[in-house]
């Protein structure tokens, strides 16, 4: 290769380098131009703002204050609505708990009355009364008394927590028992008093059509039970109403069964 051609290539390369530097410089110029344009626009806006008259500023300030007030009012409305929603939520939660408790209480009352009327056998009815008084009311020492029509005494039919013989027969004209039979309403004494088989802490009269047929006397509660709830009082009423009719029906049924057997026996005797 001749030296002329070599020189030509070298000049070509130098020119290319010069050209690419020129291109980079142009790019930098364009970026700088863009930045200057933005600065110019900012300065122009500042100039416009600075050229506003005090009235225009007042108007602008008024507009901004109006918007601020609107936003504050909106914020206050939202805050009030939030508070209302929170209150409603709390009311619903409280109502839910009430309904749940009511539901539980109704389940207890339903189960008690369902079980009491599930049989016509006197012993079964007495057993169910015992189950309800233990499991649903939480009594430890209690007795179910039935009224002896001839003597007017209340005799113990079934007991729990103490032997049957330890419960004395009661007169229906004495103390808390007399009060409950007289009013027809359950009477509650002090649930914390120590058990005394002469004086029940709860008397639930068993009355059918205004006539007493017996009584449930509770003398002591389970150790984990320290008082009576609203449900207990409801249960006392259910027991007073449903246990008495269940006992009455069972007694009538057993009497009619006995009579039927006697008549059947008599008929058999006559026909043989």
């Amino acid at each position, binding site marked *: 290769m001749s030296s002329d051609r070599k020189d030509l290539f070298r000049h070509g390369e130098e020119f290319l380098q010069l050209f690419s530097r020129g291109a980079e410089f142009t790019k930098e110029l364009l970026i700088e131009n863009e930045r200057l344009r933005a600065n110019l626009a900012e300065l122009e806006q500042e100039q416009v703002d600075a050229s506003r008259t005090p009235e225009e500023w007042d108007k602008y300030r008024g507009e901004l204050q109006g918007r601020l007030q609107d936003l504050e009012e909106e914020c206050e409305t939202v805050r009030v609505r939030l508070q209302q929603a929170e209150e409603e939520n709390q009311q619903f939660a409280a109502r839910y708990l009430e309904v749940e408790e009511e539901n*539980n209480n109704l389940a207890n009352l339903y189960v008690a009355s369902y*079980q009491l009327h599930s049989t016509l056998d006197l012993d079964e009815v007495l057993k169910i009364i015992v*189950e*309800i008084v*233990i*499991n*649903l009311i939480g009594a430890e020492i209690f007795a179910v008394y039935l009224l002896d029509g001839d003597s007017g005494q209340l005799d113990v039919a079934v007991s729990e927590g103490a032997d049957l013989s330890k419960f004395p027969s009661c007169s229906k004209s004495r103390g808390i028992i007399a009060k409950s039979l007289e009013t027809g309403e359950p009477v509650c004494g002090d649930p914390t008093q120590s058990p005394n088989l002469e004086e029940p802490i709860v008397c639930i009269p068993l009355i059918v059509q205004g006539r007493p047929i017996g009584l449930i006397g509770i003398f002591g509660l*389970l150790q984990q039970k320290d008082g009576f709830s609203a449900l207990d009082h409801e249960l006392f009423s259910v027991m007073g109403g449903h246990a008495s009719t269940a006992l009455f029906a069972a007694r009538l049924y057993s009497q009619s069964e006995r009579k039927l057997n006697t008549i059947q026996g008599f008929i058999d005797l006559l026909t043989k």
Partner: protein
Amino acid sequence: MTRSMELSMDRKRILIVEDSPTMRQLLVFALRRLKDVDIIEANDGMDGLRKVSSDHFDLALIDINMPVMDGLKLISLIRGEDNLSSIPIVVITTEGAKEDRERALSLGANEYLTKPIQANHVLKVVKGLMKSESKA
């Protein structure tokens, strides 16, 4: 797998071992509020043992004072069987003394509730135990 099989696999089974029909009915009432649960009843400890041995249960509610076999005996037998030892057991009893509670818990009961029961409390306990059981 068919849809009905999937459903049956999702369902939980709870055993109630209680001699009092009144209490059983009350517990069934409470537990019926749980979704996808089958409730099976046994009226004494022996009946409970037969049922728990012959079928799968996710939880058992056991009374202490029962005829034929009491609840404590039943709990110790359940905990003695390898395939039954993980069933969560809730005791529901009238016995409120501390030593009765400790005895039942030491035999393997998971929870100890005293009568008279609050249905929503029983539900809460049952839900809690079944949730932790399904996580395990």
